[in-house]
């Protein structure tokens, strides 16, 4: 382990600055002070001890924890040019920047490719990886690699999350109101309800000389529905994805339980960006590998199910997939993933921009495989069409 600067505070400050700058860590003076205090109780000669102390203090999310060790290596061990090593407690693939990272997802739990800072390897390395994967007869993975690094692959179009207009928000609110979730466990004051409200009855009785003449009640309100948006970011979608991004931002504004993902050859969670945009901040997200190239819808949905189904899907969840259905992946994987999505959620809405094209029939293989599991197949191009969706959406088992 080598220290680039002569003093410990300088090294620590520079390392924190590099985490902030290169890896979007949320590090302020408080974290810096905590790190300094933490190092007071660590053996500075022991690299592993230093890592173990700094990791929980400076990392604040799972993604941070994944990025920490490679960043630590780059900063403190750059001179030694070490290969990324396996670190106890985290899956090795997540720590080793490689040709495939960011573009290829594996089935290893609990890792998830998230498009965080990665080192994109040289083209020949990629070709080698493709050959290796193909040799291993892992067709799905090879397809993803080919799609991701195909000659059509470009820098891609950035995702632009615009603050939502009033019409979008109103239409999203109408949609959220349409989904009747179950009763919450919260007790709220209500005119009528199953539970007597002692506190309010007592307070009201002060107006009648302590005599509880007017009784107060409490009832359980409805739970907020959850929306999960999976937006196809492939080249074929192009500008048609913009309304879907607007839907994501508008739903984020009306329901804090909205989760947004984008996919093409890999899945990426962009919930935070959608939420910030809903609060009025324009967000431009550069996702080169996710936003361009072919689409492996089935594999990406499978990836979503593997990592997020347990946490995000349920009887109150409406899944919205925005895609043209032009798929280059395995058809059986798409069918199975759609079946699972439909089974584990209240409704699956497919937003297909091609439906606005005169003469279009959803007969593409991806679309035809997915259709039996889709509750509503429609297109959304403006707030009015989102409002129309709100009127037609039927949610299973809730009688909406």
């Amino acid at each position, binding site marked *: 382990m080598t220290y680039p600067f002569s003093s410990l505070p300088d090294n620590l400050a520079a390392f924190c600055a590099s985490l902030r700058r290169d890896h979007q860590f949320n590090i302020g003076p408080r974290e810096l002070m905590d790190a300094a205090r933490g190092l007071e109780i660590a053996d500075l000669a022991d690299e592993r001890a230093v890592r173990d102390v700094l990791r929980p203090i400076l990392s604040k999310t799972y993604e941070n924890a994944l990025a920490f060790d490679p960043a630590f290596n780059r900063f403190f061990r750059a001179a030694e040019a070490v290969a990324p090593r396996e670190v*106890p407690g985290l899956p090795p693939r997540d720590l080793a920047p490689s040709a495939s990272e960011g573009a290829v997802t594996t089935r290893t739990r609990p890792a998830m490719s998230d498009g965080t800072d990665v080192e994109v390897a040289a083209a020949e390395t990629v070709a080698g990886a493709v050959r290796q994967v193909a040799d291993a007869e892992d067709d799905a993975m090879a397809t993803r690699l080919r799609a991701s690094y195909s000659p059509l692959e470009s820098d891609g179009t950035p995702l632009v999350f615009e603050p939502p207009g009033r019409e979008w928000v109103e239409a999203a609110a109408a949609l959220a109101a349409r989904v009747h979730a179950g009763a919450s466990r919260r007790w709220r004051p209500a005119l009528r309800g199953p539970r007597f409200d002692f506190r309010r009855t007592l307070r009201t009785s002060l107006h009648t000389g302590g005599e509880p003449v007017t009784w107060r009640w409490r009832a359980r309100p409805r739970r907020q529905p959850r929306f999960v948006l999976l937006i196809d970011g492939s080249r074929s979608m192009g500008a048609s994805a913009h309304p879907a991004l607007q839907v994501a931002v508008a739903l984020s504004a009306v329901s804090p339980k909205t989760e947004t993902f984008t996919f093409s050859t890999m899945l990426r969670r962009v919930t935070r960006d959608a939420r910030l945009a809903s609060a009025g901040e324009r967000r431009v997200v550069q996702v080169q590998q996710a936003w361009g190239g072919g689409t492996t819808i089935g594999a990406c949905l499978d990836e979503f199910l593997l990592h997020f189904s347990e946490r995000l899907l349920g009887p109150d969840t409406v899944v919205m997939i925005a895609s043209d259905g032009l798929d280059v992946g395995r058809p059986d994987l798409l069918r199975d993933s759609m079946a699972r999505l439909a089974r584990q959620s209240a409704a699956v809405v497919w937003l297909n921009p091609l439906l606005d094209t005169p003469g279009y029939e959803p007969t593409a293989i991806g679309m035809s495989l997915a259709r039996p599991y889709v509750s509503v197949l429609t297109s959304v191009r403006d707030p009015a069409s989102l409002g129309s969706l709100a009127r037609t959406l039927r949610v299973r088992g809730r009688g909406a």
Partner: protein
Amino acid sequence: MTDPAAIRALFRERGFILNDPFATALHLMVALRKPLLLEGPAGVGKTETAKVLADVLDTRLIRLQCYEGLDAMTALYEWNYPRQMLRIRMTEGADTTLEQREAQIFSDEFLLRRPLLDAIVQDRAPVLLIDEVDRADEAFEAFLLEVLAEWQVTIPEVGTIRARHTPYVILTSNRTRELSDALRRRCLFFWIPYPTLDEEMAILQARIPGLEARLAEQIARAIQVLRDLPLQKAPGVAETLDWAHALIQLHRAHLDWAALEQTLGCILKVREDQSVLESHRERLQPVLEETLKPGGHSLDTDFGLGSVSTPHR
């Protein structure tokens, strides 16, 4: 609790296996007195960590289970209204002033302490477990921030109560929603992954001392294979332990297909997952065939917790 090694040893004595990074995170939590936010898949021991820590520190564990709709009153305090009303009725004819009656009905006797207030008023710093904080609403999270920052609670009728000792706080989250940056920044963060093969074997040996080393290894290896399958609900450590107990109850000295099928419900809780396993039988075959190989194992390896087996190379 003087260093990570001591923490590891203390936890191990109680059957809880920690790796170095986790032990260091706990050490920092105690040394810096900062809340520790634990995230990880279900069933890896997030909640158990708090229980064992309370035992190690010989202090009380106070648990606040979060859920959707949890409000400040439920987490902090409530007045015992029925009792207050009864007291008002009973003392209606008494010769007391209004102030005296008020002081009486808003006294400690009528205060129902909920977990957060309870944690503040302890004579000895307790371990406060705020479990599944992601299930609570964002409004509650904002309230929590205030408590974690100030460690004081204001009750209008009583006044401000300050913590006598800052509790050791462990928050757990299953990531059903993203926690706010503000809450994260007040905490240390540690991601608990599924245990490695060696760690899982050590856990089995530590928690079930009578378990045959060969069976422990087979269970641990089978679980590692299962976690790599595309299951809806991957088995956690709790399932591993349940499975081991079930096999012991059935007097199984080794794992084979018959034993697996008998006890499948201990590890796979979704019907579709059982179908997935069926279609990936060949992945488990090497693990289940281990028992057929005579002398296939060396039983001499010690992971610090007794004899366990490793594959013979």
